[in-house]
């Protein structure tokens, strides 16, 4: 496998503002594997919220901005999110198809953009990070990563190599948690019913932690669990692979 010495991190706005620790974990993991990380300061949002709501002009403007920011360097781009990853890898091409300048650049960016767990397993060939942990984990497959990018056993392979972590199956692990971006707000009652079903499965499975590859779904499920008073936490896979220094 060709050695990848340097990547650019598209950290995503949710990680940036809500889960900065996850971003730091991603950086630590990559650096320990000998991959230097750049994090372009001009990055903002990939445009997915606008795209999913049907506001294509707004989405296009943010897509162009993102393409610009990550085209300054030819280095691969790593995204700790299947959802934003799917946006850059699959939707940019369609969104910018008629743009004479950006169509090619968007395709180029898509070809060198990877979701974090896929990058580790498929690009770096790493499955065992030599870490230890504790507790019982269940994996929820986030929709866009699963069906958009084909993230299936990359995260669980990585988790299963963490010494001391016990993984238990999550019933209906590939059924949507009901997040869906603005769907959770606009169709709140349907979204809440889907979430309730998901939380029932979570509480039944016996895990103390639910592992995901998207912090948006983590925020959704964790918010529901907190409302229920449940002690179960939801964490990005990176947080489980590198919980950070105890200090």
């Amino acid at each position, binding site marked *: 496998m060709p050695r990848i010495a340097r990547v650019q991190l598209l950290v995503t706005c949710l990680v940036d503002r809500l889960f900065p620790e996850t971003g730091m974990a991603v950086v630590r993991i990559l650096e320990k594997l000998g991959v230097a990380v750049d994090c372009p300061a001009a990055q903002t949002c990939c445009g997915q919220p606008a795209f999913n709501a049907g506001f294509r002009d707004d989405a296009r403007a*943010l897509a162009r901005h993102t393409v610009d920011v990550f085209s300054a360097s030819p280095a691969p781009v790593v995204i700790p999110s299947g959802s934003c990853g799917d946006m850059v890898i699959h939707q940019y091409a369609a969104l910018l198809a008629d743009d004479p300048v950006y169509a090619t650049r968007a395709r180029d960016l898509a070809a060198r953009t990877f979701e974090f767990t896929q990058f580790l397993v498929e690009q770096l060939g790493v499955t065992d990070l030599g870490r230890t942990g504790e507790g019982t984990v269940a994996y929820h497959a986030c929709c866009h990563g699963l069906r958009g990018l084909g993230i299936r056993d990359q995260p669980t392979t990585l988790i299963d190599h963490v010494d001391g972590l016990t993984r238990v199956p999550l019933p209906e692990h590939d059924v949507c948690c009901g997040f869906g971006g603005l769907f959770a707000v606009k169709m709140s009652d349907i979204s809440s019913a889907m979430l309730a079903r998901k939380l029932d499965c979570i509480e039944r499975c016996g895990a103390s932690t639910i592992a995901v590859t998207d912090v948006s779904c983590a925020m959704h499920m964790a918010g529901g669990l907190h409302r229920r008073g449940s002690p179960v936490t939801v964490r990005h896979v990176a947080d489980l692979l590198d919980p950070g220094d105890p200090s």
Partner: protein
Amino acid sequence: MTTPAPQPFHQRTEAALADAHLNQTLRRVTARVLDSRTAGLERLPASDDWRDHARRIRAHTLAHLDRYLDEFVTNVEARGGHVHYARTAEDAVTYVTDLARARGLTKAVKSKSMISEEIHLNDHLERAGLQVVETDLGEWVVQLAQDHPSHVIMPIIHKSASDVADLFRRTLGATDEEVADVPAMTKLARARLRPEFLSADLGISGVNFGVAGTGTLCICTNEGNGRLVTTLPRVHVAMMGIERLVPDIPSLGTVLQVLARSATGQNLTVYTNLLTGPRRPDEFDGPEELHVVLVDNGRSTVLGSTEAEILYCIRCGACLNVCPVYQQIGGHAYGSVYPGPVGAVLTPALWGQDEWTDLPHASSLCGACREVCPVRIDIPRMLLTLRAKGVDEGRAPSWIGQGLAMFRRVAARPWLFGAAGRAAAFGTRLLASRGWIRRLPGPLAGWTASRDFPVMAGDSFQDRWKKRQTGKPGGPQS
């Protein structure tokens, strides 16, 4: 033409979500059907290749629909059948009622046909003085209950066995013994409906596939009512969407290989019925007259749009069964004869977003529908194109439009994005107690109806990153 939704979408979903009985029935039945589907496809070697090929057949047919429809008309007529192209629902029902009047027909038996639901054929025939009897068990229940189907292949998925037993007792005067269990109710249906088949003079069916090269109609049923309806009455009227064609008989074999497996998990439906023209002069049975009504009713508009791919659909219903939204709200909440993911695209694509503006938004875009579709229709893609059309037509709520426009202006300027993020983080801390927000303001309150919202971090990842890089040898100096 279609029935306007009786209530706003939100009210319909609210009622459905509050119905625990409906919820349990839906969950139980969809899970059972999905397991059958998985098993059905696993029994077929290289099922993915069959699906890919079925998709090619459907895509090719639609791309040459002018040619194939023309060929189909020629071949149906060559076998002695009649074809009518109905541009609108009114046109379609007028043709059938006029035909019934001209031939003096009095009693129609019907097998399942979504398209006759779409154009409200029964109402019109009854108004024209005909007796109309639905003969598919599920559709018969729907007719007796004066209800609507809530699934494209399982019309009464919303009813439990005890619901049906109650209905039979109430409307048919059935005894407890006659409704003791599902086999008993099945027997009752056979006994009550057989005389109707034998005495009807008009048979009305839907069509699963028309074959352009031979003028053949393919009708798939399990109960056998589809055969009776197309064999006993002297006039057979087949109601068919203009998109339901395949080029030739070998192509028909391919699409049939994936249809039943995706729908119910069966290898084939019990009866795969191929009809080529009416009864031939030397044959003993079959209708004397065959009429095929090609219903457009918006389909040519869909064909000319970015949603044309939805016309590849072969009506297996798998996308309904797998959809976590459908599983929660059932078919009626969609308000359309075509519910679920396929209906959320097809309904507004056919009849516009005046009535149906909410349907493309009734999805979390999880993509499960695309994954199970036997012809791999990219439903999420078209939910998104419809949402974009809704925005272009000015249908989006203003708070979303204004919010996203402001978000775009901010996010296009990294320094502003950082500042706004800090402001938002500050805002969340004001609303929160112990790290979580229990009530978000304004339109965001939907979120906190059932879940808390986390407080944003005081120092963002970008803040920490900058700090870290500054401390690093060779890092940027700030």
